[in-house]
């Protein structure tokens, strides 16, 4: 009960901060600070929240349901990218776990390079590869100019998962090293447990909580990657929608919509983790 009310308060307060931050453009009248203007914009936006609209240069449209299609598309590729990057990282971890130390260091360094590359380079290289494949084989792997009936999923997810996978991999490797030096591993070994059992049953369980808190930083980074991705690939996603119709109202509602699934995701995960590990995550 305490947990539920706490999360409820958090949810409401966070939604309020979206309005407060979304109205920040009103704080600046030109290059000067104008607080009354900010308050007025706040009032204006709060009233408009009941029937949100956006202006496309000629006509005013209702925001719902026009924002929902790009929103669901973005969420699919975002969550897809997050899950795929975790899968990459776990695969990499298991594959490199038994390698000699020198090879591990090399792979660690490659992952470091991967995570420090700016997203804009990764996305451009991806796009060039898609065009190159098309030029060579005539096979259009991903439709670069999007039409409504043919919306790509696989390639955006692949493209978005690259940098987070490097982050996750490196983080998990460091975490694994720390875990392996702990006493309970010695204990488990001396009891005669198989290494695979130790890894899957004990180490992974202890790695889950730090992984969860680390993943929030990654989600933040992925969201800003998504902005650039949707711009360069001109895909119909929520951040492109927010960029095209950049008003305080659209920004506030867009942020709220992005926040809701992640809020549910993290609440569910922390409940599950509490059941499994008995520890408070987040």
């Amino acid at each position, binding site marked *: 009960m305490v947990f539920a009310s706490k999360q409820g308060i958090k949810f409401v307060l966070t939604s309020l*901060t979206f309005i407060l931050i*979304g109205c920040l453009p009103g704080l*600046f009248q030109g290059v000067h600070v104008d607080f009354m203007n900010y308050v007025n914009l706040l009032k204006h936006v709060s009233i408009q929240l009941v029937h949100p609209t956006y202006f496309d240069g000629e006509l005013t449209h209702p925001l719902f349901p026009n924002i929902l299609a790009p929103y669901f598309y973005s969420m699919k590729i975002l969550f897809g990218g997050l899950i795929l990057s975790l899968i990459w990282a776990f695969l990499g971890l298991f594959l490199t776990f038994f390698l000699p130390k020198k090879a591990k260091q090399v792979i660690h360094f490659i992952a470091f390079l991967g995570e*420090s*590359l700016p997203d*804009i380079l990764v996305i*451009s290289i991806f796009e*060039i590869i898609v065009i190159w494949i098309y030029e060579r084989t005539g096979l259009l792997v991903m439709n670069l100019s999007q039409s409504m009936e043919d919306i790509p999923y696989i390639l955006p997810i692949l493209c978005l998962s690259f940098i987070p996978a490097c982050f996750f991999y490196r983080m998990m490797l460091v975490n694994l090293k720390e875990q392996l030096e702990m006493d309970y591993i010695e204990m488990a070994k001396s009891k005669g447990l198989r290494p695979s059992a130790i890894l899957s049953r004990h180490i992974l369980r202890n790695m889950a909580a730090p992984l969860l808190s680390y993943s929030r930083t990654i989600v933040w980074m992925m969201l800003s990657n998504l902005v650039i991705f949707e711009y360069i690939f001109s895909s119909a996603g929520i951040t492109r929608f927010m960029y095209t119709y*950049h008003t305080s109202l659209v920004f506030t509602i867009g942020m709220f919509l992005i*926040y809701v699934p992640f809020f549910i995701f993290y609440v569910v995960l922390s409940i599950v983790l509490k059941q499994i590990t008995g520890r408070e995550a987040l």
Partner: protein
Amino acid sequence: MIRNLLKQPLFIIGFLFICVFFISSLTYSFVTHDYVPKKMLFYNHQGKLIDSAPLSPSQAPPLGNDTRGYSIAAMILIGAKTTISIAVCITVIRMLLGSVLGWLYGMYFYRFKRIVTGMLEGIHYMPMTLLAYLVLSSILIARKNYGNFQYSKVEREWFEIFILALIAVPIIATQIGDMIGETRKSEFINSSIVLGAGKWHLFWRDILPHLTPRFILFNVQQMIQVLVILVHLGVLNLFFGGTMVLGPPYEYFSTSNEWSGLLGLNVNYLMTMDKWLFIYPVIVFSLTILAFSFMSEGIKKAIEMPVVPRRKRKLNEEKEDIAEQIYAHSFEPLQLNK
């Protein structure tokens, strides 16, 4: 710390790259006064006209020309010093404001930690690029049809610098505050308090020396983020200092010669045959980011290395010397009553 840092090859590589790049950019501007070579047409050996701008890297070495015939390489080189100095400027403002607020939070208001982190929860889902775009677009974008910019160039640039600094201050302040607050819980702080240290002394003499390496690391990481957000804004057609829009059909022009303009103007060539217009600037930008990442990784490793004060080492050596002497003499016959 510095001695450890000089032992890190990653740090040295990154640092040297940035220094050489910056200094060569300065020198180029100093010698040629920002001269950009221009070449519109390309003739072959027989003097026959083959191609016009944009020219590919093989026709106009080293990195090709853009649509107006200007050399990409020269523009990258000229833009380097401006871009890096803008980023340094924004980082310094961010870190100054963030440290003052973080110091207040960590030293005096740390018991409200739950409330503060709860309030800032929302920012962790906000793409900073979009937020910056939302705030800046009304001032930095001028449509030619509706007249010129409302504010002068200097005003626009400082406004952008301050906004880009301010949007990150809450996060930086909480992170620095957390660092200070966590350090205050450690044992050596307790013993210092027992010995009668006040808050002022505690911060300057105990906490600050302890946190300085991490603070430097934080600076470098912020530098990377600032560069990335500048270039992201450039790709979204919001160039540093303002965007001039002509049209429709819309054409965008940068009013300054730094990298966000260079990248943003050429992003649409990515899908055409003239990819190099975008790819080479992006590669140079990525190398710069990598250099900063190398620096931050080097600092991280240097922090993890054990710090051996110089005086102590000397003492140890002396001790060893004495031990050796004793050992060397231990097999000699004892000479009593010389």
